[in-house]
């Protein structure tokens, strides 16, 4: 293999405080940053990811040290001293870089392990880089591999399935009751921030309509507009009970606002459709005795917290499994890269062509039993020289020091043309 190295440089929420991250150079968007990177002559291929929790660059280069210096200038500019920036920045090469990228894509390096957003952000970043022609054969392969690793982790482990925030916990419980949230109506009593967040999640999962009841009607109107629902007054509460499926209560009232008997009375009109209630107010708004009613499911803030705790332990267990998958895939990628080197490619190509020639020779000889030993020798010689001549030009192409194309690109082309196995088992 040539001296090409994969280098990953970055800062994230663990190493770098937000005051520094926000000063970094990529705030103006992907395009200008990528174009500046592409202009660096040491940089063969590049890709840049910037989210609120991390800035990472993935580069292919033959002069990693020189490039790293330039990247530091590029990233931190004059805002941060070089001394300081070295503390924040982590640098990985080759296998470690691949491993880190896979960990990030699989959401194992995230602040909230298992959150699904990061994969979308990586895909977005890759679209920019690929669109500007910053990535080449190696990074294209690597990033596609990262997508499939993330997908594999998601489907083979439960890492994405468990909720680790109060509002996810609410959605999780709702799904265990209703199956799907499609078409379910939500009533918010009180327009607190947490209730808003939970309602947003429910709507994101398919809930149809959000009604907001609040003491100050203006706030209710504002929130319901934001959530695409409508405002109702607190006096209408009783009549709304008949129509809604999910109630989230978060008022600052000092006493209970909904009693067991009130709900019991309405269950018959509801034809016993289940009613899912979340009480995130302290002191509580909803009568704790409501849980005794059939088809009524009431949870307070402590219940939701215990769901979150349960999910956290579950997620940690799954993260261990996921890390195993990442290790395995990193190893596989390493094998693929080795296979991409020039020498094995030459060997594979020669093997294939010679095999074809000899196979045809054998077939012909089998049909000519009367052939003498001498004649056969002559045919064998001819076969060898055909194979050698066919191979000559492709090998020249491969060995030629051509500044236009990288070795990876050449190897990639030849392997495609001759359909050589590339030691990789998935078709991504």
């Amino acid at each position: 293999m040539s001296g090409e190295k994969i280098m990953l440089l970055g800062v994230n929420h663990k190493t770098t405080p937000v005051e520094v991250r926000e000063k970094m150079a990529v705030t103006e968007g992907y395009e200008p940053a990528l174009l500046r990177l592409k202009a660096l002559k040491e940089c063969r291929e590049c890709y840049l990811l910037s989210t609120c929790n991390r800035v990472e660059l993935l580069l292919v280069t033959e002069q990693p040290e020189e490039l790293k210096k330039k990247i530091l200038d590029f990233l931190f500019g004059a805002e941060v001293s070089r001394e300081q920036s070295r503390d924040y920045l982590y640098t990985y090469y080759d296998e470690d870089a691949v491993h880190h990228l896979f960990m990030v894509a699989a959401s194992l390096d995230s602040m909230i392990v298992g959150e699904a957003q990061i994969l979308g952000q990586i895909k977005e970043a890759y679209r920019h880089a690929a669109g500007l022609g910053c990535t080449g054969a190696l990074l294209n392969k690597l990033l596609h591999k990262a997508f499939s690793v993330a997908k594999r982790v998601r489907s083979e482990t439960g890492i994405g399935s468990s909720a680790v925030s109060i509002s996810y916990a609410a959605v999780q419980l709702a799904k265990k009751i209703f199956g799907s949230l499609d078409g379910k109506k939500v009533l918010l009593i009180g327009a607190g921030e947490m209730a808003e967040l939970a309602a947003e999640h429910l709507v994101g999962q398919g809930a149809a309509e959000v009604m907001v009841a609040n003491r100050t009607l203006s706030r209710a109107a504002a929130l319901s507009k934001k959530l695409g629902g409508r405002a109702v007054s607190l006096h209408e509460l009783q009549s709304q009970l008949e129509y809604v499926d999910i109630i989230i209560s978060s008022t600052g009232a000092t006493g209970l606002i909904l009693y067991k008997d009130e709900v019991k009375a309405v269950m018959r009109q509801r034809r016993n459709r289940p009613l899912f209630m979340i009480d995130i107010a302290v002191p509580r708004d909803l009568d704790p005795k409501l849980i005794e009613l059939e088809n009524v499911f009431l949870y307070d803030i402590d219940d939701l917290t215990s769901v979150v705790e349960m999910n956290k332990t579950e997620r940690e267990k799954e993260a261990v499994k996921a890390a195993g998958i990442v290790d395995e895939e990193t190893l596989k990628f390493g094998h693929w890269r080795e296979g991409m080197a020039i020498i094995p490619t030459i060997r594979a190509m020669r093997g294939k062509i010679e095999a074809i020639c000899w196979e045809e020779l054998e077939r012909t000889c089998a049909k000519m039993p009367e052939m003498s030993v001498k004649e056969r020798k002559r045919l064998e010689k001819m076969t060898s020289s055909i194979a050698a001549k066919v191979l000559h030009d492709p090998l020249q192409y491969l060995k030629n020091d051509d500044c236009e194309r990288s070795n990876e690109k050449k190897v990639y082309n030849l392997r495609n043309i001759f359909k050589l196995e590339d030691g990789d088992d998935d078709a991504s």
Partner: protein
Amino acid sequence: MITEINFLLFQAIIAVTLGSTAVYLAFFISQKEKIRTVARNILVLSGVLQTLYIITRYILTGHTPITSMHETVFFFVWAMTWAYLSFRWRYTVKNFGTFTSILISALVIVSAMVSRDINPLPPLLRSWWLPVHAGVTIIAYGFLALAFVGGIMYLVQEWELKSKRFGYFFSRLPSLQALDQLNNHCVTTGFIFLTLGIVTGTIWAKQALGTYWRWDPKETWTVITWFIYLIQFHQRLTVGWRGKRAAVMAIIGFCSVIFTLWGASYLLGGEHSYVR
């Protein structure tokens, strides 16, 4: 020859059915999709073998094999297996297969433990009404058994949700809505078949015995069973009984089915006693 095939088929069914339950349990613990696919395929194989067994037994006995204890329980197994597979084809209910296959296996074991002798058919039962009346009734039992399994799953899941104890079963059991839908589908289908079973029975009784209804113990218990499901069916339609109440009714109803199937025959005697 056919006797040997028949015997071997039954041995194979025991092995395959218990095997599918074991694999289903492995799936329940591990929650790996691949294992479930294997388990389901084994259950389909078991269903096919069961059908072949019934056919060979039909050839052996010369009548629909649904008159002895062994035959009835086995027919029950067959009905439940295919009721499950037909249900599975339309709806997905998480981990339902595990629970169902446990009950199927239990019934296979029961059918293996009782006498498998072939007895001559009493003249009274020599009629083409036999397969219609008994077959339809047992198919009803198959669906009602599924409703029973769903009812138990519902109660477990509801308990987890209400006690807020979110334990081992919480993540593995389906949503309450899915279980209630299962209950609705299986009780309705089972109820329709049960009604057909009763209607065909009365017509047959009129032809063979000259009277529609004779309050034979099994008939009495079937009517009790029928009323239990009728109440549930009616209440769901009118006031929307669902959830826990529907689950409890499905369990009570199924206990009544089991008593009708065994208790009424052994303890109370009558026209419907198994041929021994």
